C-alpha cells in the first residue's frame, strides 16, 4: 500500500520490481556512446515498412514482445500496458499494440511519457491492481520531423539549441516481486511554463519543469542530493541541463556532481551533429531500458532518480504564438529497499 507524501509524491511501501527491460533503436543511436547497450539496432529506418509511422508501430510491437519474452512471461501474464509516443492521436502505439490482447492505457506526456508510464505502472502494481504491467514509450526521428518540423529533404539549418529526436522504443515490465531494481518513490510533475516560445530550444522550455519536480521530490521525501548516485533527466540536452542545474541550485540543492541527461548521453554531439542532444519519448525510454537498467544491475549505481521531461506543445500552438509548457515526472529507482 502506498503513501502520499508531501505535495505531490508517493512512497511505495512494497516497491514494485523492474523485472525486465528491452530497447530497440535506430542506426544513429546504435552508433552513439550507448550503442552496445541496446538490444536491437535497426539499419533501415523504415524497418521494411511503408512509412515512418508504420515503422514506429513495428518498433513498439517488437520491443514489447521482446520485453515480455525477456521476463520469461507470455502476453497472457500482463494485465495492462501503459504506453505513448509523439504522433498525433498516439497512432504509433495503438497500431503497434493492436495485436496484443492486453488492456491499454494510452498516454501523452510528450518526451516525459516513460516517466508517466513507469509511475502509473508502479501505482497499479503497488495498489494490487495488477501482477505485471508493461511501461513503454517510443519516438521516430523521421516521423517526428514530418509532424512537428520540416520535411527531411528541405534545406534548412538547425540552430545549436535544437535537439535530435531519437528513433527508438524502450519498455520495462513491472511486477510485485523480483530481484529489483525497484521503484521506491515517484514524484509526478506539474505543468510548468516560464514563457519560452522557441520550439528550437526545447531544453530551455523544459528545464523549469525538471527543476520544479526535482525540488519538490527532495522536499516531499526529505531526501537530499547525497541520497542519490545519479540524477538523470530525460532530454533537456546540453542547454537545458545547464539551466536546470542553475534553477535547482537556486533552491539550495547542488546536484552538479551527480547530474546527467539522457539526451546528452545518447549521442556524441561532437561527431554526430546532434547539436543540443537527443530528444523524444524514445530518448529517456531506451536510455533507461538499455543503459541505466543494465548498469544498475552491474551495481554502477544503486540509487538513481530518473526524470523524463516533456514539452507539451503542438505544431499549431507555437504557430499561434503560444509558449511551451512542460512537465517532468520523477521516478526513484533503487537496487535495495529497506
Amino acid at each position, binding site marked *: 500500500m502506498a503513501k502520499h507524501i508531501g505535495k505531490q509524491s508517493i512512497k511505495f511501501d512494497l516497491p514494485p520490481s523492474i523485472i525486465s527491460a528491452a530497447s530497440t533503436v535506430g542506426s544513429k543511436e546504435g552508433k552513439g556512446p550507448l550503442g552496445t547497450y541496446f538490444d536491437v539496432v535497426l539499419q533501415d529506418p523504415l524497418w521494411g515498412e511503408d512509412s*515512418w509511422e508504420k515503422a514506429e508501430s513495428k518498433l513498439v510491437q517488437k520491443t514489447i514482445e521482446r520485453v515480455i519474452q525477456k521476463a520469461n512471461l507470455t502476453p497472457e501474464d500482463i494485465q495492462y500496458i501503459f504506453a505513448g509516443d509523439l504522433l498525433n492521436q498516439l497512432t504509433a502505439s495503438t497500431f503497434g499494440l493492436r495485436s496484443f490482447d492486453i488492456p491499454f492505457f494510452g498516454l501523452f506526456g510528450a518526451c516525459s511519457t516513460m516517466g508517466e508510464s513507469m509511475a502509473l505502472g508502479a501505482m497499479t502494481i503497488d495498489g494490487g491492481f495488477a501482477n505485471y504491467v508493461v511501461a513503454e514509450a517510443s519516438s521516430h*526521428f*523521421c516521423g517526428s520531423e514530418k509532424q512537428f518540423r520540416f520535411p527531411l529533404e528541405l534545406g534548412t539549418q538547425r540552430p545549436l539549441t535544437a535537439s535530435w529526436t531519437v528513433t527508438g522504443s524502450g519498455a520495462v515490465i513491472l511486477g510485485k516481486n523480483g530481484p529489483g531494481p525497484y521503484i521506491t518513490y515517484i514524484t509526478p510533475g506539474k505543468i510548468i511554463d516560464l514563457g519560452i516560445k522557441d520550439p528550437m530550444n526545447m531544453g530551455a522550455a523544459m528545464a523549469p519543469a525538471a527543476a520544479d519536480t526535482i525540488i519538490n521530490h527532495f522536499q516531499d521525501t526529505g531526501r537530499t542530493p547525497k541520497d542519490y548516485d545519479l540524477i538523470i533527466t530525460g532530454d533537456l540536452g546540453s542547454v537545458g541541463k545547464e539551466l536546470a542545474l542553475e534553477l535547482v541550485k537556486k533552491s539550495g540543492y547542488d546536484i552538479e556532481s551527480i547530474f546527467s541527461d539522457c539526451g546528452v548521453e545518447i549521442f556524441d554531439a561532437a561527431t554526430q551533429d546532434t547539436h543540443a542532444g537527443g530528444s523524444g519519448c524514445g530518448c529517456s525510454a531506451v536510455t533507461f531500458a538499455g543503459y541505466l537498467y543494465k548498469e544498475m544491475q552491474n551495481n554502477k549505481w544503486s540509487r538513481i532518480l530518473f526524470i523524463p521531461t516533456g514539452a507539451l506543445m503542438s505544431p499549431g500552438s507555437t504557430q499561434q504564438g503560444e509558449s511551451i509548457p512542460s512537465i517532468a515526472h520523477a521516478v526513484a529507482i533503487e537496487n535495495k529497499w529497506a
Partner: protein
Amino acid sequence: MDYVKAFIIGGIICVIGQILIDKTKLMSGRILVLFVVLGAVLHGMGLYEPLVKFGGAGATVPLPGFGYSLAKGAIEEVDKIGLKGAFTGGLKATSAGITAAVLFAFIAALIFNSKAKE
C-alpha cells in the same frame, strides 16, 4: 565580368537572409515571404530595376527577384491593358516558373522516396 557582379549581388542578398536567420527567430518560410514582397515593393518604387541591370542573375535568381518579376509583370500589363493588368500581369509573367515548379515537383514525387537523414 557579369559573372562577378552576379556572384557578389547574389551573395549579398543571401547574406541578408542569413543574418535574419541567425539573429532573429524568424523561420525560413517567413523570411522567404518577406523577401518576395520586398522585391515587389522595391520594384514598385523603381529601386530594383537598377539592381537587376547591374547584378543580372545576382538580382533575379534570389527570391526578391521573383517578387520583382511579379511586380514587373503587373506594371507592364497595366501599361498595356489598364487596371485589369494589375490582376493578370503578375501570374502571367511568372507562369512559366510556377508551372515548371509544380510539374517538376509532381514528377519528382512520383519518382523519389523520402530518405532518412543521418
